[in-house]
């Protein structure tokens, strides 16, 4: 029993790294994704094309490869980042690209008449976006953002290749040391609890914003 408790405690520690990567990535990638989406929709062609290229690169290559690139290739050109920063950089850049495409689709799906109504009421562009467009976009993008967020919980396990002691790596280390599969089951429970909490939270949000 002590042994099980000890395992769970070690894994709780590992899940801190997991949660840290999850939270920081979300906090950085959501606003960055919104900015990229606005840039993609901007009439300034070079900006829009550049961001299109960025999105293509991020969505067209494996996140694992992007992690390895930031971790191993950047130091070769003299950019040395602490492990956690390297991981967060790769995750944020990758997820911002996915969020940007979700937000772009969301913004595009708000009818033109909403902008025109706002304009005839004297609302400026920033005011229109803040008060009229974004609240509608928010509701439209909730389900796909919820999906991506749940993916992110599981994707955090990719950092195990960077020798960071996240939940999965801690589990694997114990399994290899003790020849006992229990940590894998515990890890599964940990991930399930996290994704269940997210699913519940997003369901609440969708219900709240589904009132109109």
């Amino acid at each position, binding site marked *: 029993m002590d042994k099980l408790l000890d395992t769970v405690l070690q894994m709780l520690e590992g899940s801190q790294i997991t949660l840290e990567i999850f939270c920081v990535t979300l906090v950085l990638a959501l606003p960055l994704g919104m900015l990229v989406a606005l840039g993609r929709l901007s009439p300034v062609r070079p900006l829009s094309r550049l961001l299109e290229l960025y999105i293509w690169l991020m969505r067209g290559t494996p996140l694992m490869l992007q992690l390895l690139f930031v971790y191993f290739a950047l130091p070769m050109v003299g950019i040395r980042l602490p492990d956690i920063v390297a991981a967060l950089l790769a995750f944020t850049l990758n997820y911002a690209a996915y969020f940007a495409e979700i937000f772009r689709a969301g913004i595009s799906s708000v009818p033109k008449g*909403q902008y*025109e109504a706002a304009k*005839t*009421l*004297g609302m400026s562009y920033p005011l229109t976006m803040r008060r009229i467009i974004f609240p509608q976009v928010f509701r439209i993008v909730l389900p796909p953002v919820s999906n991506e967020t749940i993916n992110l919980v599981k994707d955090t396990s990719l950092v195990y290749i960077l020798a960071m002691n996240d939940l999965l790596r801690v589990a694997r280390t114990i399994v290899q040391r003790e020849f006992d599969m229990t940590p894998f089951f515990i890890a599964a429970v940990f991930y399930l609890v996290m994704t269940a909490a997210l699913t519940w939270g997003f369901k609440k949000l969708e219900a709240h914003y589904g009132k*109109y």
Partner: protein
Amino acid sequence: MANTENELMLRMHGIKKAFGDNEVLKGIDLTVACGEVLAIIGPSGSGKSTLLRCINRLEEIDGGSIEIEGEFLAVTNEAGEAEYVGAKKSRELLSRMGMVFQQFNLFPHMTVLENLLEAPIHVKGLKREEVLPVAQELLAKVGLTGRENSYPSELSGGQQQRVAIARALAMKPDIMLFDEPTSALDPELTGEVLKTMKELAAERMTMVVVTHEMAFAREAASHVIFMEGGHIVEQGEPQAFFTNPREERTRAFLQNML
């Protein structure tokens, strides 16, 4: 803004507008006096909606001039291109006009009351307590007292359009523009919207109405313009216009509509 009767509210001269190679307006002149209701009728593609949208700059003209209450919004320069006044002046002039759309365009994430309060509070910077009585009064006027907390999706098309009228009026415009306000409505719902518009006309609100409702144009308009192919074919007082149109084209159009 105090306006004496017959004061000119809107003057458009030589309005030209093209979308690519497609010339939609080929030199339109019109004037609207204070308290006047101008009805613009015509077949689809005649340019009537585009003309209306040029008044409040939802579309920008290529040539001609627009004057609002004696002040220029746009003039044509020596090179023959339309030039708009500076952003600040433009905003000020446009704020004197309200618009009602075919598709209502209410803000779906806000209640009826929030739709009305939005612009007075966030554009004019008024306090909620100041605007609330105005909004309540407007809702009473369009017959929607008690629906303050409904969302647009919970209302019928006719109710939504009446909210849209109240929302535009909440900004206290001098001129109201209507772009086919009943075209998206079931026939039995057009009556309630037209009734609201007639009441507005009776209060001497200056209105420009693009419409397919000949009965409304005949009863409520003080002046009717018939457009086709980017030109004004015929215009006049509704009585003479509807009973004895001069142009063959007008006669053919009216026959189809009535």
